[in-house]
């Protein structure tokens, strides 16, 4: 058994602690299918510092999970094409051989998956699943592994950890299973954690507990964390930065606080408007996003959100907007007519006048809600 740690094997720039933990540059991932090439991720770049959290938000099919899996090198099969680079502590993960990758997985980079029911092996007792990779990576004895497992289960607040080690996953509730998955991910003390929709399959109360748990562990261990979710409510209070994805592209990226205060991209605004909120009166009309996400085999020309956008102009259909800084420079958005600008208002008025259906729907909802407010 190899007892050395990944740090010895992977070129790690230990002195350079100020450089970002993870630098992803221009990642493209495609799947070759009988119908053509599905361009799931189309040129995504981001940086993540140690101890920071990044939220990745988007609808199904926006490429957020494929992005996480591309960086983790988990897209298996010979129909996958990934290009670009993902530098983890200075070395490009995408160039590593499978053997070297095995030393990173679980040890340096870990992942928590969406469905805790299927992420665990139903025929293996929890105790072995929690420590299997620890024994592999750190070469500790069975006894040491067991006491480590008890510590971990305590840490993720599983009651009676000694007894739970001998349970099978099906004997535990969904929330407990997700806690086990988190314990597995934390076991080797990784420096980077991907959480892919970790609470989507769970109840609100359990979701709250699991998100608190992830936050606490991320802070005490100073991990970098990428939180992938479709729920703007989940990223709002829990991430430092947020990246909004649509059709495989990043359409907006900013500190989470600023993103919610000053939305620039019409898609971010549309996502936000479409969610029901508990502080709105009941029967408040929701502003649904017209249409459906685009076909990723043949994405629309120009801006990929243009067919659904209420502010769309001719330019949007022809030219793809670049992701450029707005305001202070740490806020990026890819839109020719950003929300809140004069040009945007002008585009909206033009579309109302031209009778564009997706614009009229928004206009109608806005007038109705302002009428209601006046009435109250």
């Amino acid at each position, binding site marked *: 058994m190899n007892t050395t740690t990944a740090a010895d094997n992977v070129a790690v720039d230990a002195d350079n602690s100020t450089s970002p933990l993870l630098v992803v540059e221009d990642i493209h991932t495609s799947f070759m299918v009988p119908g053509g090439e599905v361009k799931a991720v189309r040129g995504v770049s981001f940086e993540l510092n140690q101890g920071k959290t990044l939220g990745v938000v988007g609808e199904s099919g926006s490429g957020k999970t494929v992005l996480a899996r591309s960086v983790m090198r988990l897209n298996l099969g010979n129909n996958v094409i990934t290009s670009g680079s993902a530098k983890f502590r200075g070395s490009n993960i995408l160039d590593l051989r499978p053997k070297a990758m095995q030393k990173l997985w679980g040890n340096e980079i870990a992942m928590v998956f969406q469905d805790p029911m299927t992420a665990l092996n139903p025929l293996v007792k929890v105790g072995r699943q929690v420590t299997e990779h620890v024994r592999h990576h750190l070469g500790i004895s069975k006894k040491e592994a067991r006491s480590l497992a008890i510590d971990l289960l305590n840490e993720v607040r599983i009651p009676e950890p000694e007894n739970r080690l001998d349970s099978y996953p099906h004997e535990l509730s969904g929330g407990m299973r997700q806690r086990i998955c988190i314990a597995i991910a934390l076991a080797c003390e990784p420096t980077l954690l991907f959480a892919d929709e970790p609470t989507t399959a769970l*109840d609100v109360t359990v979701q709250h507990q699991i998100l608190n748990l992830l936050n606490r562990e991320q802070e005490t261990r100073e991990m970098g964390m990428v939180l992938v979710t479709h729920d*703007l409510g989940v990223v*709002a209070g829990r991430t430092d930065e947020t990246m909004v994805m649509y059709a495989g592209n990043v359409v907006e990226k900013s500190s989470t*606080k600023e993103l919610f205060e000053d939305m620039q991209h019409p898609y971010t605004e549309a996502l936000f408007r479409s*969610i029901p*909120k*508990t502080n*709105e009166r*009941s029967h408040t009309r929701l502003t649904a996003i017209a249409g459906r996400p685009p076909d990723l085999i043949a994405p629309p020309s120009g801006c990929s959100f243009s067919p659904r956008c209420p502010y769309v102009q001719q330019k949007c259909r022809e030219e793809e907007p670049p992701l450029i800084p707005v305001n202070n420079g740490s806020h990026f958005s890819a839109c020719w007519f950003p929300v809140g600008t004069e040009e945007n208002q002008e585009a909206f008025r033009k579309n109302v006048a031209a009778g564009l259906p997706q614009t009229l729907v928004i206009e109608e909802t806005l007038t109705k809600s302002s009428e209601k407010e006046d009435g109250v």
Partner: protein
Amino acid sequence: MAGSGKAHLRPEDETLIRVEDLVVEYDIPGGDTVKAVSGISFDIKAGETLGLVGESGCGKSTTGKALIQLPKPSSGSVKHNLVELTGLSSEAMRRRRTDLQMIFQDPISSLNPLRKVEDIVAEPMKIWGPKDKSKQQEMVDNILDAVGIDPEQARGKLAHEFSGGQCQRISIARSLILDPEVLICDEPVSALDVSMQAQILNLLEDLKKKYHLTLVFIAHDLAVVKNISDKVAVMYLGKLCEVAQSDELYENPAHPYSKLLLDSCPEPDPTVVIDQTVSDDDELPSPINPPSGCRFRTRCPFATEICSTEEPQMEEIRPNHYVACHHPLT
């Protein structure tokens, strides 16, 4: 409550659906009984939307199914238009189900992927509808149009060619083709993306007006339930905790469980301070052996002696706001 009581029920002749002391229990191997629903009472007026909310395992779906006698409840009464459904023969109940329709959580698995959309939507009419084929066709086209599916394009397509959101529209079309009075929606948007969710919620509101429907809306997402419901009932482990108009309940939750649910709800607002102190490891107790007295007491921060010995009863704490708790929040 998680307690009992009927103080919140309205006069019987004003309501379309009236449920009293509904109990649903399942025997499982080993001689145990799962007490899925343990004596709940509620009523719904014609044209009202009642939201049923609670965690998984609280019995909300079981309650929805018990309304249409699938399966027949273990005891208690379910009345539709003053007619007792639990006593009906299976044939009489079959006839009555044309007025009580249901849509389900997973829109894709609730449609046969290999059947044509027009056949799926027309199926109920084979038994109950007009026998005239062209009349049937016209009704299918009308209802597809009403749920926002283009009948020209969709009619001949197979169900698996549609996305989740469209499948849910088709399910809704199928449930409405016989012009029911009551539509029971069991988590109809939880499998959908936020953008589809908003479309389906708006659609249900529109159809409710157009077809004068009464809705029972079952969901675990509090924001969704508030948006669509006139009245909300909070369930916990087979019991009702709190019943009130939705705005009132969300502004002034009186049951500690309702408060817990609301505090857990993620708000899309980064300035909201997240409560990190919410107890971290409590779990729903087993419905096989529920706690004595108030069923919520094992997780309740305010529980005292009386909570374990006496089951709280529904009481009106504000006009039309009922709560079953010994220590309601004020």
